[in-house]
């Protein structure tokens, strides 16, 4: 059986003037439906580029991304993105931001009342049902990111792409949101791909951790399966030997074998 999402011999290079920089080289990855994948690596290794390639926001140089055996080369709501800096439209309220996505994706398929219920259902899912009429400037960073997640989930994506979704948040808020994401993943069984540079976050949330080598011409160095039972509890994992060994494996990869070399 072919995998749900297949990244097949993917290369990406950027040309500027006469110079060509190869960012990613020969990326191969198969992802099953419902899997939670984290992509981890040092900054500048091309993780975000890889996510943009899957999202279709950046064109592929060579190779292909196949979703359910069909090539994707343009962005679409089947691969919803949660952006690092939330990307909510500041002139719309929380409700309207989600509505924009729902109206576009379900315009012919759901009635007005159904769409309203769907918007509220998604906002309630991220516990933002109380702030529907607030504008993004009136809510906290963590709340904005929740709304961003609600907007992405409301598109009913086949794959949810998270680009360092909690990177800009403080540690406490990040922990709240990680738990929310775990809860949503358990309930909805979405396929999720998350970019992160936080080792604990990767081990806590993922089924598999994809570790990238340093650029240029970065590729997948190792893939680590995290065989921890779900639901996972942050506190119980702290002393769990499997958790500790997973953490150690990622740390060893990042700081022993692929130390970040300061480029300039």
């Amino acid at each position, binding site marked *: 059986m072919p995998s749900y999402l297949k990244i097949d011999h993917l290369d990406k290079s950027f040309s500027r003037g006469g110079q060509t920089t190869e960012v990613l080289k020969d990326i191969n990855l198969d992802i099953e439906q419902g899997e939670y994948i984290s992509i981890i690596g040092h900054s500048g290794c091309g993780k975000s580029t890889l996510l943009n390639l899957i999202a279709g926001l950046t064109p592929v140089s060579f190779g292909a991304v196949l979703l359910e055996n069909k090539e994707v080369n343009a962005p679409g709501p089947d691969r919803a993105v949660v952006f690092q800096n939330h990307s909510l439209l500041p*002139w719309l309220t929380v409700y309207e931001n989600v509505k924009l996505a729902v109206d576009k994706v379900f315009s012919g398929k759901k009635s007005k009342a159904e769409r309203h219920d769907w918007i509220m259902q998604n906002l309630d899912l991220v516990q933002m049902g109380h702030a529907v009429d607030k504008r993004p400037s009136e*809510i906290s960073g963590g709340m904005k990111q929740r709304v961003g997640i609600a907007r992405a989930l409301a598109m009913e994506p086949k794959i949810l792409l998270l680009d360092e979704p909690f990177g800009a948040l403080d540690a406490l808020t990040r*922990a709240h949101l990680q738990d*929310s994401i775990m809860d949503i993943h358990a309930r909805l069984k979405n396929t999720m791909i998350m970019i992160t540079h936080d080792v604990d976050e990767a081990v806590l949330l993922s089924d598999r951790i994809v570790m990238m080598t340093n650029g240029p011409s970065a590729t997948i160095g190792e893939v680590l399966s995290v065989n921890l039972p779900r639901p996972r509890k942050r506190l119980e994992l702290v002393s769990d030997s499997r958790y500790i060994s997973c953490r150690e494996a990622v740390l060893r990869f990042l700081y022993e074998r692929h130390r970040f070399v300061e480029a300039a």
Partner: protein
Amino acid sequence: MGAPALKPTAEVTPLRPGITAPISPEVVKLPARKPASRFKALGARMKSIAATIVPPLVVVAAIMLVWQIAFGRPGATLPPPTTIWAEAKDLIIDPFFVNGSQDIGLGWRVLTSLERVLYGFGLAAVVGVLLGALVGQSVWAMRGLDPIFQVLRTVPPLAWLPISLAAFRDANPSAIFVIFITAIWPVIINTAVGIRNIPQDYRNVAEVLRLNTIEFFFKIMVPSAAPYIFTGLKIGIGLSWLAIVAAEMLTGGVGIGFFIWDAWNSSRLPDIIVALIYIGLVGFALDRLVALIGRIVTRGVQAS
């Protein structure tokens, strides 16, 4: 505002065994506003209003005094305030009198001029935003059009008038065209800058949602570029008002510009001075009006 965020998930995340659930911030209630402070607030408000109004009044009074002293002597080239009051009293106190087809209050004349500005500027706003969007969005449109815009925008408004009279063969559409061509450049240029400054994030959102061109224009471009567009509109309305007076001097008719020219030809200097004050006040009001609309429309856009 941050309070509700902590509440719903609080029990999901016990952070450390030592620290129990975060203390609910709802407990803290702000003390009720005391009714006694309302009187005080009113007083403070009056004080701040007076602080804005009194200084310009003092300056105006001082100018009038100097003016009266400078031109009050017999044989002065310009009339002093007292002469203006004596001779143009009807124009000052009643803007909306009608004593015949050419003997009407300045209010009516200003309204006629405003009507022309409305047509010309309205057209310039619509066309300017569309052209600005094109130039801002497409590199080739910018390369092709921008140099032409940069040259044309330096042409003084009145230089367009003869050609416009030749083309339209009528004073009114010619005046409207001059307004249009004067006001459109700042609208185009500012809109283009606004469109170019749309954050890539918003474009990504639009791409993921597969918004089409029209949806993108109305749902992302216009709201996102609105602060820039309104800067352009504000400059444009000011230029329109500058151009209309000059255009009307040459085309004739009922407007405030023609009134000044007419008054000059019949040596009614006090009337001209009153008309200048009208023009200044209306121009100021237009500027503030566009700024106010801009503030209402762009509410929340800058703060993200």
